[in-house]
């Protein structure tokens, strides 16, 4: 036994390395496990409280760039608001003529951004609202311009939001003009990438890409970005579409959480389940 202990002590660096590497690999594998969520909620509360005390300090390197971008965006937005107002009136009148009801409005919860981590590895924002306000993991977060991301974890008073510029971000999306579907993800740079779009389908530079009806997390028709480039993927029937995000993620100060009506969703699921059970019973009877 003593010789064994001596051996371990003689190679303690290697023993420690082996144990720690094994532990790290296990943790990486369990990263998305639900058991980790209470830990995430705890850190969201701690980091949220700390960040809310320093949120007023600006990044001096980013201020000049932000100012310039804001001015040009303000001019663009002013003309777009006018166009959109006219379009809204037209849309409402046309819907009345066609007898189509207006789409139900989402239940939005406004929240202030109290913390931001915008570096290469984690692009996240901390919101001033949490589970006490009805926010839950995976709820969509938007601004008036478009999609920001989804809720990653919550504490009582804070919510940590995973932005579009995040390795884990995926969204089912469509080209608004032609309804061509694809999956949007982050490519690691200042742009997003839309995959699984067949080469034969219609998409052009400048087209708006928004969330599709098939997304499990995001409501449909929320703008994500505009098409910057279309490139064929080698040895594939698909093409790679590069998107310029609509929202400047590094400048978000206010956001809205799209609240899911859990009771309604539960009721819908139970009705669907009941319908499936009835159909199965009828099949068995036959």
């Amino acid at each position, binding site marked *: 036994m003593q010789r064994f202990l001596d051996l371990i002590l003689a190679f*303690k*660096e290697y023993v*420690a*390395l082996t144990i*720690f*590497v094994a*532990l*790290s*690999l*296990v*943790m*990486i594998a*369990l*990263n998305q496990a639900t058991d*980790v969520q209470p*830990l*995430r909620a705890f*850190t*969201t509360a*701690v*980091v949220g409280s*700390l*960040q809310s005390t*320093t949120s007023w*300090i*600006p*990044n*001096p*390197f*980013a201020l000049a760039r932000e100012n310039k971008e804001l001015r040009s965006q303000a001019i663009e937005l002013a003309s777009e608001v006018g166009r959109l107002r006219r379009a809204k009136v037209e849309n409402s009148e046309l819907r009345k003529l066609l007898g189509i009801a207006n789409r139900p409005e989402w239940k939005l919860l406004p929240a202030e951004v109290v*913390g*931001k*981590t*915008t*570096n*290469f*590895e*984690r692009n*996240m924002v901390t919101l001033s609202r949490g589970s006490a306000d009805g926010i839950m993991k995976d709820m969509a977060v938007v601004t008036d311009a478009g999609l920001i991301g989804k809720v*990653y*974890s919550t504490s009582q008073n804070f919510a*940590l939001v995973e932005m579009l510029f995040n*390795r*884990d971000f995926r969204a089912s999306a469509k080209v608004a003009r032609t309804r061509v579907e694809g999956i949007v*993800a*982050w*490519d*690691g*740079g200042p742009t997003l*990438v839309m*995959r699984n779009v067949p080469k034969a389908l219609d998409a052009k530079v400048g087209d708006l890409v928004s969330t599709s009806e098939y997304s499990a997390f995001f409501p449909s028709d929320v703008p994500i970005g505009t098409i910057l480039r279309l490139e064929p993927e080698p040895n594939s029937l698909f093409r790679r579409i590069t998107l310029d995000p609509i929202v400047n993620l590094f400048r978000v100060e206010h956001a809205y959480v799209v609240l899911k009506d859990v009771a309604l969703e539960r009721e819908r699921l139970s009705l669907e389940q009941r319908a499936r059970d009835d159909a199965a019973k009828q099949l068995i009877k036959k």
Partner: protein
Amino acid sequence: MKYLIYAAIGLVLIIVQVLVSRIISIAGASPDFVLIFIVWLTVREGQFAGVVSGFALGLVLDIFSSGILGAHALSKTIACFLLGFFFDADMSEQRIRNWPFLVMTLGTAIVNNALYFFIYTRGSEISFGEFAFRYGALGALYTTVIAIIPLLYFMRKRAF
């Protein structure tokens, strides 16, 4: 007692890292204060202390930065283990107070960032090479520049 002080310094640096990285980030890259500290610790205390502190502080950083749990822990453990081969008890004080400290910080930061981004880009649309070059190299350089501050402090301490 000495190790408790090290742990306290490490925790303070993690809080600084989480809070300050947004304010001082340049082109998306921010300095790794925790890495500078564990490089200093490894040069001063040796490979074993480096491996233990790399894992422990890396894990706490993973928890507080809401990153991939275990990614910082793994990259910092391996980076400090490799750095530990350059440990020399007789030369440690001299290295901390001279330019070799910066070289060691740069080397460790490059290894750490390469490992971290390797884990980070797995299973995503992000290209490892491009991402590691764009942010890993910039982050390693930024960390080395910030390491000049403790270097100057220790050089000044020797002068008096």
